[in-house]
């Protein structure tokens, strides 16, 4: 273990750290929004929901690696050249959207039927029912799955290395390739991920407990 190598690599890891954080944040927000839309689409069985089922099947049953390869190396074949960072974000949204949709849908379906009927007899429209009754209650049932998905998606960013994005994993592998110091750089890689993931998972479970305490009843 040589601290000189660690010291020299700190700036590279800081760049990788913030790049990972940036791509993950945008990708996860995108995945959450897509997930909510898809979940409500399926919940209300709006026209086209069969196509969405297909999307979920494809997204969940193919590796992110293949999805990124398809976007980055495949799409230029039909004249669509998407830059690496956008490819990464798109890939994360495509993958995460289906996981988030399943998480949200599970929550929406867990809302008791009597709650929906109570909203109906008060006269709420479909949209109002979704906004004031189904979503705020469904989200509570969805939270554990959403939290797990967020962590899963952050870990998946390590695959961005295949499209030459200098995130944390790429930085570590690259430095190992140049200087052959596996121990130092792998340690820095693990620490970088731990700095993101440990506070996040503690924060998520704290948030979940708090929301539950405030909101669950009957």
């Amino acid at each position, binding site marked *: 273990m040589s601290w000189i190598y660690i010291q020299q690599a700190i700036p590279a890891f800081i760049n990788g750290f913030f790049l990972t954080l940036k791509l993950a944040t945008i990708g996860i927000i995108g995945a959450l929004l897509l997930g909510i839309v898809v979940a409500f689409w399926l919940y209300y069985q709006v026209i086209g929901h069969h196509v969405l089922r297909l999307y979920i099947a494809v997204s969940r049953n193919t590796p992110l690696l293949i999805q990124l390869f398809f976007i980055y190396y495949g799409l230029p074949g039909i004249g669509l050249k998407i830059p690496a960072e956008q490819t990464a974000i798109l890939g994360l949204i495509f993958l995460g959207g289906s996981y988030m949709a399943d998480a949200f849908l599970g929550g929406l379906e867990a809302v008791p039927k009597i709650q929906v009927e109570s909203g109906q007899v008060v006269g709420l429209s479909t949209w109002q029912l979704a906004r004031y009754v189904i979503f705020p209650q469904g989200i509570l049932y969805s939270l554990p799955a959403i939290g797990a998905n967020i962590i899963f998606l952050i870990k998946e960013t390590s695959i961005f*290395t295949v499209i030459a994005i200098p995130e944390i994993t790429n930085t570590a592998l*690259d430095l190992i390739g*140049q200087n*052959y110091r596996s121990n130092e750089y792998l340690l820095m890689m693990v620490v970088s991920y731990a700095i993101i993931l440990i506070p996040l998972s503690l924060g998520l479970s704290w948030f979940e407990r708090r929301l539950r305490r405030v909101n669950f009843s009957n």
Partner: protein
Amino acid sequence: MKKKIIWSLVAVLVIIVGIFSVHALTSKDSSSQNGRTIQQIKKSGEIKIAVFGDLKPYGWVDQNGNRQGYDIALAKKIGQDLGVKVKYVQVNANARVDALNSGKADIALANFTVTPERKQVIDFAKPYMKVSIGVASKKASLITNVNQLNGKNLIVNKGTTAETYFTQTYKNAKLLKFDSKTQQFAALSDGRADAITDDNSYLFAWVKDHPDYQVGIKQLGDQAYIAPGVQKGNKSVLNWTNDEIKKLNNNGFFTGDYQQNLAPFFGDDVKASDITINK
């Protein structure tokens, strides 16, 4: 609550650092013989050789699933002279050192350029080929001088001498770092960068199939040598390989290897004597 979070963080970090420190300490103190000896390899009837799987014409897999190339021919020859079967371990550029030092491979014949950094962590046998770094780009916007790369996107393969050159000597290009040769050439074809840098011999081979491109800079930095790599401290395999390479350099094996495996892929830009080492 906050205290709890901080303490769990500290605990996890301490455990991680601890594991790595122990690993680093225990893996250092072994100076005598590392890895399998030639006798052990002969006894097992099989030698494990690290090769590329996607680097035409050095080490690649053809349409029928057979391994082909300049390095593969050498690997077969080594297996033959040792009287053992060859087991191929496919690697990427930046996995070559770890493949040796973890014992996954006895020898690496993967277009391995000798560098001072690498010499610290593995041992190289005598070289069997000479190369230098080149830069290829589109003919329409050909790059002929390294200063033209200032601020441009340049594709490199992680863990190659070209990457080292562009991180230590000429730092003004924006590097796109790929894991494999397939990915880096695909990215170049898709127009994701202005140029690619790698050992000139691959570039010659690639531009022959891609006439829109040309190797605008044929030699950059010092002449470098390609040699078999072995695990650091594996004297038994190192000595045997040195003798083997010396023999093969003298008896013209590599000229034949060149004619068979490289000449069909290189254009008229290259001659056998540019690549092989004859003494």
